């Protein structure tokens, strides 16, 4: 089995060629470890949220089953940022490259498409982002809470840093819905 392995620069270029201006910016992080100076790379790409599904499809062209670790998400004031952490070229001894894709979701319309139809393993991650940050994942196959209990108030979200954040609720969880 031979795989056509692209260098980190070529991977970033292939994204830029495919999605043009939709890629806002990108950077390649090089890591050197040990006495033998072994190298590996982390790629960071910031992109428009409308193309998230096509981005994953593009990743699938590079690696049939891209490894999806998790997605992180945080409140940045005016917007919410979601970072999808993928990796490709695993199983090839030191060739694995991490690809971290950041998307911005404005708080006025915090929605994004699901990627579970392409990567079924992303389900728990997407459910978690919904309940923790109050975003809406379109067409998510299982639209229920995973980590937060059912009696937690529906209009507050633990990871938000604005008025929708937990605030004083966090001190009075025993009183919620009692």
């Amino acid at each position, binding site marked *: 089995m031979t795989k056509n392995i692209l260098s980190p620069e070529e991977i970033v270029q292939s994204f830029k060629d495919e999605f043009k201006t939709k890629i806002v910016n990108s950077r390649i992080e090089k890591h050197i470890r040990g006495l033998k*100076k072994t190298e590996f790379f982390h790629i960071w790409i910031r992109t428009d949220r409308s193309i998230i599904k096509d981005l994953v499809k593009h990743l699938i062209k590079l690696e049939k089953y891209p490894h999806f670790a998790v997605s992180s998400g945080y409140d940045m004031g005016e917007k919410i940022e979601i970072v999808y952490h993928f990796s490709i070229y*695993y199983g090839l001894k030191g060739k694995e490259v991490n690809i971290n894709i950041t998307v911005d979701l404005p708080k006025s319309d915090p929605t994004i498409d699901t990627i579970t139809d392409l990567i079924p393993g992303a389900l728990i991650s997407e459910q978690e982002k919904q309940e923790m940050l109050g975003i809406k994942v379109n067409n998510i196959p299982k639209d229920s809470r995973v980590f937060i209990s059912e009696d937690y108030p529906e209009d507050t979200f633990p990871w938000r840093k604005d008025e929708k954040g937990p605030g004083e609720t966090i001190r009075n969880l025993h009183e919620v819905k009692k």
Partner: protein
Amino acid sequence: MNTKLANKITYQIPVGPIHPALKEPVQFEFEIEGEKIINVDVSLGHVHRSVEWAGTRRNPIQILYLAERICGICSYCHPMAFSLATERAAEIEVPERAQYIRVIHQELERICSHILWAGVAAHEIGFDSVLFLTWQIREKALDLTEYLTGNRVTKGITMIGGVRRDITKDMYPTILEGMKYFKDNFEKIRKIFLDDKTFKLRSQGCGILTKEDALKLCAVGPTTRASGVKKDVRVDQPYFAFGDLDFDYITPDLITGEINGDVYDRIIVRLLEVKESIDLIEQCLDKMPSGDIVSEKKIAKLLSILKKADGEGIGRMEAPRGEVFHYVKLNGNESPHHWKVRAPTYSNILPWIPMLKGNQIADIPIVAASTDPCMSCTNRVAIIDNGKKYQLDKQKLYELSVEKTRRLM
């Protein structure tokens, strides 16, 4: 309740929620037809402790000790993955000697965890003499951990930019003696787990995860490698000093020549990994360079560097159960703006569903244990039949499993 035919009644069995000691609390809802599992639903978060939220209210050094308490078994992997992510976000370089010491602690933790798991797996099928044998061997690993870190469980060895204690030449004989003890006992354990007839009957062809499912559901660690997927962060992205060391992916075909992705294969992978870890520790002692063990000794100075840092980074490590993943975003404040923790079990939950489908109720303990979560999830089990509720506690479920072993013998 679904009724297709009068004699084909399916039952709903909720299993869980879990014991608060677990970082990934879980509850299963089984749909059962007779003894056979038709469908499984998993629900999480019964004891969510908001560790990530709490982390954004502490400084990075305080988080190390919080991260250590995420899991009692991986009490080295979590703070270390956090520290890897922070080092990348703040661009802190780690001295080479520290990278070697980090490998030694990680592999020692893997030995501890895999031997502990072997005992639990034996207990789940009613082989308690093996539980005592394996845990006796594990005692030595804990003694060694105490010798190297000063602690037996929460090790307190991690520091951003290095480690807190050195491993000096005069400590080598004790470490090597420990390694010899593991090697001497390895053959005994190997024989019990891989050649024993009862073990084979209970584990072969049980809880199968196909390679395709493992890839699609992004399974990690020994669970995915037993299905033939070559994913091991140590080899894929040689962090610490792994690039200098000689080792490879462990898949079950190294022993049997074939990959089935069943419980037996997962036992093989873990056993071989124990052997590999012993070898890695010896290689490290052999090749370890001299130098500093931490990049910045003064904590106050380190904190001020971290306070000024503005950036993001990820920390990935191969924990005993698979890839542990931390994301840290620093934005020039005392505490990180965001900290995301992804423990390996998080990724190994969805693969449980294809693994458990088609198996028997008596197989639940060993199949669930085969991915190495904490088995306390079976503490509280209830069977709901036609609206009536029967309690099936861990004891009963365990007895069912032991009965099945007896039947096979």
